[in-house]
C-alpha cells in the first residue's frame, strides 16, 4: 500500500468521523455565539482576543474518542488494517485531527483577519498569538490522544476540562493570598522554583495562556510536552493488540 494512499484514507476516515459528531457543531456554534456577543457588546479587538484564547479548545474537543472506542468496537479488525496497519492509522490520527482542527481555526482566524485588515485594526501580534494558540492545540491533541487510551467516549476531554476547572478554582483561591500565583501569572514573574513548577503544571492544564505575549516563549516547553505525550502514545500503540471483544 503506497504511503500517500494510506495517509489519504486515514485523513478521510478521521474527517468523516469528526464531521459526523453533532456535538462539534454545538461547540462551534457556542463559541461563535460567545465571540459574536463580545464583538457586538464590546469591540472587534476584545472578541478577537476571546477567540485567540478559546480556539485551542477546538483541538481538545476534536481529540474525543480518539483511540479506545475504535480499538474496542472492532472496526479496526478490517482488511485495510491488516499487518499492523491499524497502528500507523492510530498514530497518524494525531496529524489528521490536528489538520482538521487547524482548518476550523484558520477559517475563523481568516474572517477576523480580513475584517481587521479592512478596518485597519489588524496587528501582526495577532498572527503570533494565533501561532502560539496552534502550539497549544497541538499539545491538546497529543494529550487528548494519550488520555483516550484510558478514558472512553468523550471522557478524555472531560478529564482535561475538570482539571482546568480545578485549576481555575485554585487560581481564584490564590487571589486571597498576598502575592499569590494569580499575581505571578499576571506579571509573568516567577521568582522561585515552587512558582516555576506551578507555572509548568498550569501550562500543562491550560496551555491557552500561550496566546498572551508574555508567554510566547513557553510555546517551546508546550511543544516539548506535546512530543512527550506523542512518545507515550507511540509506546502504547506499539504494544497494542486487537484482542477479543
Amino acid at each position, binding site marked *: 500500500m503506497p504511503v500517500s494512499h494510506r495517509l489519504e484514507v486515514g485523513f478521510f476516515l478521521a474527517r468523516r*468521523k469528526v464531521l459526523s459528531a453533532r456535538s462539534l457543531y454545538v461547540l462551534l456554534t457556542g463559541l461563535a455565539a460567545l465571540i459574536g456577543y463580545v464583538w457586538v457588546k464590546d469591540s472587534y479587538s476584545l472578541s478577537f482576543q476571546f477567540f485567540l484564547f478559546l480556539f485551542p479548545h477546538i483541538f481538545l474537543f476534536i481529540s474525543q474518542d480518539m483511540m479506545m472506542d475504535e480499538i474496542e468496537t472492532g472496526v479496526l479488525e478490517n*482488511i485495510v488494517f491488516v499487518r499492523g496497519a491499524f497502528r500507523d492509522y492510530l498514530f497518524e490520527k494525531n496529524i489528521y485531527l490536528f489538520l482538521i482542527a487547524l482548518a476550523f481555526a484558520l477559517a475563523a482566524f481568516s474572517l477576523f483577519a480580513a475584517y481587521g485588515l479592512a478596518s485597519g485594526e489588524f496587528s501582526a501580534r495577532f498572527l503570533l498569538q494565533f501561532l502560539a494558540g496552534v502550539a497549544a492545540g497541538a499539545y491538546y491533541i497529543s494529550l487528548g490522544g494519550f488520555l483516550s487510551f484510558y478514558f472512553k467516549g468523550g471522557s478524555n476531554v472531560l478529564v482535561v476540562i475538570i482539571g482546568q476547572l480545578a485549576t481555575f478554582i485554585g487560581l481564584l483561591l490564590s487571589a486571597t493570598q498576598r502575592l499569590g500565583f494569580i499575581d505571578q501569572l499576571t506579571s509573568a514573574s516567577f521568582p522561585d522554583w515552587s512558582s516555576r513548577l506551578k507555572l509548568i503544571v498550569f501550562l500543562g492544564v491550560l496551555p491557552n495562556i500561550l496566546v498572551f505575549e508574555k508567554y510566547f516563549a513557553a510555546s517551546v516547553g508546550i511543544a516539548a510536552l506535546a512530543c512527550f505525550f506523542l512518545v507515550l502514545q507511540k509506546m502504547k500503540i506499539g504494544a497494542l*493488540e486487537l484482542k477479543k471483544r
Partner: protein
Amino acid sequence: MSDVVLQVENLAKRFGRVEAVKNVSFSMRRGAIAAFLGENGAGKTTTIKAILGFLKPDAGRVETLCREPGYVPEHPVFFPWLKGREILGFTAKLFGMDKAYLGRVVDWISAAVGFDPALLERKVQTYSLGNQKKFSYLQSLIVSPDLLIVDEPLSSLDPVSIKSVRELFLRLKEEGKAVFLSSHLISEMEKIADDVIIIKKGSVLLEERIERLRKEGRFDLERLFLSFHE
C-alpha cells in the same frame, strides 16, 4: 512461483495465564480451500488474528507469501458513520484500484454473495447482520486477494446465501486463490474443503489433505473430528 501462500510455524500466544495457542504450525496452498476446525475456544480466532497481525505472537512465525490477505470476521464491525459505498471507495483507493474496475467487481461479487448493491447508499451499521457479513465479503473480495481468511464463513447467512457463498469459494479456488475457512460447521466444510486442519486447546492435531484421507478411507470429517475430542 511458490505454491504456498501462508506458512505458520510454532505460533504461540498467551493471554495472561491462558495459553490460547501453542506450537501451531501449518501451511496453506494456492488453489485450495482449507477448513480450520476446532471447538469453541480452541484457538481458531487467536490464530487468525495472529496471522493478520492484529495480535503479536509470543513465539513463532507467520509468513504470508502474497499481497495483503482478505479477511471476513465472524461478526464484522464497520465505522458507523460511513456508507457502504464510502467504505468500498477507500478500500479501493488503498489498494490502488480505479473506479471503473471497482464498479465491475462490485457488481459481480454482489451477485455472487446475494448482496443488494442498492444498500451501498446506506450506512453499513443499518444493515442486517446477514447483509453486514455479505458486505464484509464484498469489501474483502474487491481487492482480489490471493488468500481469503474467513472466520465462521456462514454465520448470520440464510440458506440461499450459504449456497451462494459456497459456490463463491469454489470459484475462488478455480481462480487459483487460497481460501482459509475457520469453522465448527463440519458438514459444510466437508462439502468444499481440500485440506483440513484440526486444532484443539491451542494445538494443531491434524493437518491433512482430504484427498489423502479419502484414499485412506478416513473421510468422515465429523467422525474424524470427534475422534480427537473423545
